[in-house]
């Protein structure tokens, strides 16, 4: 049903009747990558790699070019030295504390609901912390998710100190023997210094209860976001040491190509993808599948 015109069809068109990769094909490739939000510099990097490969291997046909492209893009994604995660499962730490951050409306709260569901299905006991005490009805929203997936939600009144909610949540997770605690935070634009400092504080407060917490700081990115996602990644990482990414709304026509440059530049792995609004619509990121979906 998707209306995306695929890589393959475009490149095939440009390759018709040719035995080598010429400028027209590379132009086509540039268009395809840029319109997937891969960004100019990352696109140029990919094209340079392709050109080098082509110069080395001499003869290249469409299917070979496709294979090379996939390999090179996957290689860029793999440069953060991560292998894909295979389970919604966490070993060593108990409670394993996840703090979820990102700009406004990207899908943080929804991702938390869906992740809680996956973790619970995998046999973990999960508690959620309603540390967005700012946005209208944010606490109601996460409470409803808690009901929907059957996990506890620790909350205070709207307007209360988010760090205090985070503190309570982690404490409650320890007392209750929960396996995972997930802390929601209010959406904030990365250029707002006071709000970014607040995140640092929320993070530090949790360490007082569980040293080393939060173990996972998950930055949620919207697949329809363009090049600004790079700046989001830079600023949130600076404030909170982001160590995992979630890419949401991949069920739409946006391809989320910006994560290729991000994972290359910041060495932070994409861990989850959101593919819908329903409880089951969260998947573990798979490099090969992601790259394949670009080619579809």
């Amino acid at each position, binding site marked *: 049903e998707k209306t995306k015109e695929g890589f393959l069809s475009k490149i095939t068109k440009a390759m018709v009747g040719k035995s080598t990769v010429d400028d027209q094909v590379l132009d086509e490739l540039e268009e395809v990558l840029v319109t997937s939000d891969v960004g100019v510099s990352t696109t140029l990097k990919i094209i340079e790699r392709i050109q080098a490969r082509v110069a080395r291997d001499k003869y290249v046909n469409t299917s070979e070019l496709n294979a090379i492209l996939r390999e090179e893009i996957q290689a860029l994604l793999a440069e953060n030295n991560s292998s894909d995660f295979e389970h919604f499962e966490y070993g060593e730490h108990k409670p394993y504390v996840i703090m979820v951050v990102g700009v406004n409306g990207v899908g943080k709260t929804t991702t938390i609901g869906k992740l809680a569901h996956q973790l619970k299905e995998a046999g973990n006991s999960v508690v959620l912390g309603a540390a967005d005490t700012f946005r209208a009805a944010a606490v109601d*929203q996460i409470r*409803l998710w808690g009901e929907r997936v059957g996990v506890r939600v620790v909350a205070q009144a709207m307007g209360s100190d988010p760090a205090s909610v985070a503190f309570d949540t982690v404490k409650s997770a320890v007392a209750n023997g929960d396996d995972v605690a997930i802390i929601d935070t209010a959406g904030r634009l990365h250029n707002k210094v006071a709000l970014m400092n607040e995140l640092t504080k929320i993070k530090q407060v949790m360490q007082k209860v569980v040293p080393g917490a939060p173990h996972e700081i998950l930055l949620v990115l*919207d697949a329809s*976001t*363009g090049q600004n996602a*790079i700046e989001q990644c830079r600023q949130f990482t600076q404030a909170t040491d982001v160590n995992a990414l979630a890419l949401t*709304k991949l069920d*739409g026509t*946006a391809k989320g190509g910006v994560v290729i440059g991000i994972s290359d530049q910041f060495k932070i792995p994409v861990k989850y993808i959101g593919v819908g*609004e329903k409880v089951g619509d969260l998947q573990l990121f798979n490099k090969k599948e992601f790259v394949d979906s670009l080619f579809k």
Partner: protein
Amino acid sequence: MFQNLQDKLDRAFKVLKGQGNITEINVAETMKEIRKALLDADVNYKTAKAFTDEVKQKALGQNVLTSISPGQLLTKIMNDELTALMGGSATELDLSKSPTVILIAGLNGAGKTTFSGKLAKFLKEKKGKKPLLVAGDVYRPAAIDQLQVLGQQVDVPVYADTESKDPIGIAKAGVAEAKQKGYNVVIVDTAGRLAIDEALMNEISAVKEATQPHEILFVVDAMTGQDAVNTAKTFNDRLDFTGAVLTKLDGDTRGGAALSIKSVVNKPIKFIGTGEKMEALDVFHPDRMASRILGMGDVVSLVERA
């Protein structure tokens, strides 16, 4: 990102500096850099190409007066072109009907509900209207509560039906309520939806059919990338919207999506969102947006140094 752009243009303008008139050769490198800068600003690929071609055509063969450099001339051409593309002056809402029905539509999380609240406040305080908000999102958890909280903040009543799962019925009942109780503007908030979600797109078409809105506002996140064209086009094909709203411009995005929307569907952008609070709403100014996309601050300072 800004530094990056500055460096690029710096390099580009260096090529032109000290050359008397604009030729194919001395403009090519600059155009390439400008196109890259536009793409980094999330301007649509095709739009960026067409724009640089246009600027190049205008620039070619022009004699550069001794008083200005080729860089200055190019900057002026670029600024004029972009401002023209962004559509002259600000476009207001048509509020002549009573009640005026305004339907709010867009992708998930774009800022529709927040904008609905802001618009209600704006119409009440700046236009002397008596608005009614209608809670037409029956899907997102706590969507109705969210609008109710905002309604309270701006002191505008909210029509809601927590029992109903039928957005078409709710919207219709909301408009009827407005007529009966003498509200002269009805703002219908709707659930976020993807342009390719057939069922939900049919649903919002039916809401339009049932309420015959006078204004349909398409709400877009200013940080949107290349997909902005697809989404704007599909929503416009289905709804024939009367204007767009660009949200989250308080961030540091250059907002190239604005240009894409304007050039692809040729509908005016009517408002911009500049914050989470209810007063963070501005009417759209094409010239300001043009300089933001171009990073005019940077460009002007470059020209001054040239």
